[in-house]
């Protein structure tokens, strides 16, 4: 009676959306840099004020655990597909393929990103601030990999909202599916431009 596959798959979908909510907060915080380095440092400072016994459980329970589940089960799902966008070059099939390609990139990128900026800096006592990030991102390879990482996450999430509406049977007919798809891709484009702008602050002498 209880089909474990069904609940796991629906949980994977919900967790994806939840991680997307975190992604939006994360992008929101990062956008402080658009108002200047001081604003960015203030935002990082406020987060640093949070005591570790509160911050660590949140990071482990609300970020690491959902991520671990979504990533592991996501790998299992991605391995079930033989992407065929060359033979069937329809828009939605390209999105399906990109959903999987971005997933693979994110898997590697997020481990690197979290390890270096959240774990390594804490162990070695590096103080995170605008100036540190600026010197870190002055390496053009890192900068490009970070922009790609953000774009991958944004596409994966916004396209995820789109497929979420199909997976849960919210959007049934072709017209509403197309409307939601276009809205999600619009959001994707807007967020990509936004993150590009904030990443440019680190390498251009704007402030």
């Amino acid at each position, binding site marked *: 009676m209880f089909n474990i596959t069904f609940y796991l798959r629906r949980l994977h979908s919900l967790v994806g959306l939840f991680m997307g909510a975190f992604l939006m907060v994360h992008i929101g915080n990062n956008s402080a840099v658009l108002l200047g380095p001081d604003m960015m440092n203030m935002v990082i400072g406020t987060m640093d004020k949070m005591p570790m016994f509160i911050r660590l459980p949140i990071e482990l329970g609300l970020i690491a655990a959902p991520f671990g589940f979504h990533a592991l089960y996501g790998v299992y799902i991605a391995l*079930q597909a033989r992407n065929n966008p060359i033979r069937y070059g*329809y828009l939605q099939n390209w999105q399906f393929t990109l959903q999987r390609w971005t997933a693979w990139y994110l898997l590697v990128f997020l481990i690197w990103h979290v390890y270096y900026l959240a774990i390594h800096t804490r162990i070695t006592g590096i103080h995170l601030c605008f100036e540190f990030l600026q010197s870190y991102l002055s390496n053009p390879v890192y900068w490009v990999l970070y922009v790609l990482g953000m774009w991958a996450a944004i596409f994966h999430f916004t396209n995820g909202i789109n497929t979420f509406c*199909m*997976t849960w049977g919210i959007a049934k007919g072709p017209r509403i599916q197309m409307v939601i798809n276009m809205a999600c891709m619009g959001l994707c484009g807007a967020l990509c431009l936004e993150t590009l702008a904030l990443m440019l602050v680190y390498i251009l002498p704007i402030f």
Partner: protein
Amino acid sequence: MALQKTVTFIIERQDSPTGKPYTQEFELPWRPALNVVAALMEIQKNPVTKDGKRVAPVVWECNCLEKVCGACMMVINGKAQQACCALVDKLKQPIHLAPARTFPVIRDLLIDRTVMFENLKRIQGWINVDGTWEVRIPPRQNPNTAATAYEISHCMTCGCCLEACPNVGPQSDFIGPSPIAQAYMYNINPLGEYDKANRLNALMAKGGITSCGNSGNCVKACPKGIKLTTYLAQINRDVNIQALKNIFDH
């Protein structure tokens, strides 16, 4: 003598289920309204490759020759379609023919689609009318759902949708879109409705509807124009409700 117009086919062949695939090129005279099955018949009559080698005739399957039996599905220029209604004039030359490798290949273009029948059994693709009870006048069809059921009933288990689906194949246990649409058809039938919960539970199991990743290929590939993605979304709704029932009814 005027130069005769010809058609070139590049056919992916395989001598046995485990044989290594290879390709052969055939050239035959063009004629008006030539389709792929008719061309394959010509090759069967005279199985000589373009470079003059006499070879074993190409094996493929067909029956109705009018897009109702489903038997002649193969991959033509990269896309799964019915060979009997694939007009040569509408295809880019040379025309590539390949077996639908989502299914086990028996020989050349001949595939084994037994799995589609097994999947129909799995989702209980039938209506229980026989039993120890008295057979009465059947209940009336709802004219609104009957139109939908009629559309889905056109399915000829050709397998185009399975071949196009990135999630169906040897790498996965996904039953594919067509049995899911069939389950919906039986679910909206006034008699079939009684077994709706059984069908939905079967679809919630491993390899059922949850294996769909919303690529949308199936609806584009279906030669019968069945609105597969719409019914997939509908079944997704129905299984959500069924899941709640499973939790709160027991």
